[in-house]
Every structure is written in C-alpha cells, then in structure tokens.
C-alpha cells in the first residue's frame, strides 16, 4: 500500500475516534447546558436563528468560547507530536489555566486533553503518527462548525437527547 494511502486511512480512523472521544467527554460534562458566559448565549442565538437546535448550538458556542475537549484533543495531539506524553501533559496544564481564565470549571477540557494524550500515545504503537490526529481534529472541527452550523447543531442536539434520555432512565 502506498504511504499516502496508508496515512489517509489512519487520518480517517483518527477522525472517527477523536470525534467519539471529545463529543462524549463534552456530553458527559453537560456542555450543551452550560452558559457560564454571555458570549455563549449570543453565538447560540446566531445559530438557532437559522433553525439550529438549542442544545447543539450551545455546545458549539462553548467550543468557540472556551478551550474544552475539542481544543484539548488538538493540543494533546500537538503535545504528543512534539514531546510525547510530557508534551500532552503540558497542553493539559495550559487548557486548565485557559479554562480558569474563562471562569469555566475546566474539567471537560483537562479530562479531554489527558484522555486524548493517552489514546494518541497508545495509537502510535499500532502505526499511527500524532500528525494524523492533528489533521483529524482539524477535519472534525470543520465538519462541526464549518460546513453547515445549523445541521451540525441538530446532530449534536440529537446526541444530547440520547445522553439525557439515558440519564433520565438511570434516575428511575
């Protein structure tokens, strides 16, 4: 197999894995309901005005307004690319500080960064390169924010409903 083809297959696999990682971390930490800053509400309104989902657009606005698991996964990939696990942990410290500056709890971003560091380091043993993960995160963020914010917010809203449904069943 050609090396470029192999890299494209690795990037495609990394897109799926990193999407599952950062979206599940953000959903677990209730990002679609967190409106700690006023900017989030304003961006949410701009997306819902065009027919977007409320929970999904709040989550997208949180991606923009504070460094959470999406930025954490990218910075973890950058850190592992430069310096292995210590690089990923340096990125986690920066994400935590950035969250504190934004008056956010910081748990989603820091947890996402540490988990991504472990996942990316583990994946290097089966032939992945950290640069595959960097490209995968860029593709993920373009899919979520760049193609159609309205449809992306509906998709994220559907995932949030799924998560909320499970939580309600757990309470019963």
């Amino acid at each position, binding site marked *: 197999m050609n090396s*470029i083809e192999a*890299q*494209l297959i690795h*990037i495609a696999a990394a897109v799926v894995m990193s999407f599952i990682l950062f979206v599940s971390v953000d959903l677990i930490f209730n990002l679609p309901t967190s409106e700690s*800053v*006023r*900017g*989030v*509400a*304003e*961006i949410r*309104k*701009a*997306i819902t005005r065009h027919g977007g989902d409320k929970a999904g657009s709040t989550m*997208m*606005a949180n*991606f*923009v*307004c*504070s*460094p959470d698991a999406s*930025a954490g996964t*990218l*910075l973890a*990939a*950058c*850190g592992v*690319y*430069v*310096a292995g696990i210590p*690089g990923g942990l*340096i*990125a986690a410290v*920066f*994400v935590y*500080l*950035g969250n504190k*500056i*934004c008056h956010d709890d910081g748990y989603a971003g820091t947890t996402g960064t540490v988990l991504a560091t472990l996942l990316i380091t583990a994946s290097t043993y089966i032939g992945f*390169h950290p*640069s*595959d993960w*960097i*490209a995968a*995160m*860029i*593709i993920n*963020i*373009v899919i979520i*924010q*760049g193609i159609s*914010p309205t449809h992306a917010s509906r998709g994220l809203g559907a995932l949030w409903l799924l998560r909320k449904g499970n939580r309600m069943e757990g309470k019963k």
Partner: protein
Amino acid sequence: METAIYICLIMALYSVIRLIFEPEVMRKLLYLNIFGFAISGSFVMIFPDILTLIATCVFLIGNTLESNALASAYAQRNGGE
C-alpha cells in the same frame, strides 16, 4: 506528515473564504475558530519544538478568549446592559 500539513492549510484557506463571505458577525466567530485550530496544527508540524508547543497552546487558548470577549461585548452592546 506532509499530507497532514496540507490538510491543515487547505482547511485554514476554506475557513478564511467562509469567513469573508459570512454576513453575520457572530457566525464569523465559528469560522475564526476553525482558522485558529488549523493554524495551531500546522504551526506545530512546521516547527516541531517545545517552545512552539507552548506558543501554540497560548495562541489557541487566546483565540478562544478573544472570541469570548468579542461575543460578550457584542451581546452587551445589543442588550444595552
């Protein structure tokens, strides 16, 4: 590695084109976020160094802070508070 850099740079270019043609200010911030991600990723791959990593972290986190500040200021101006 080159493939990943090209992907980052193409996505940065795409986000800039979308940014230019987007009429709403708040929706521009979504494309600005993609631009920040793409530039951070390509920066680390072009200059792999520990100082570049720190600069990238500061750039990306600063980018989100700027977006937050812009959106808050815009909301305050529109809300009249």
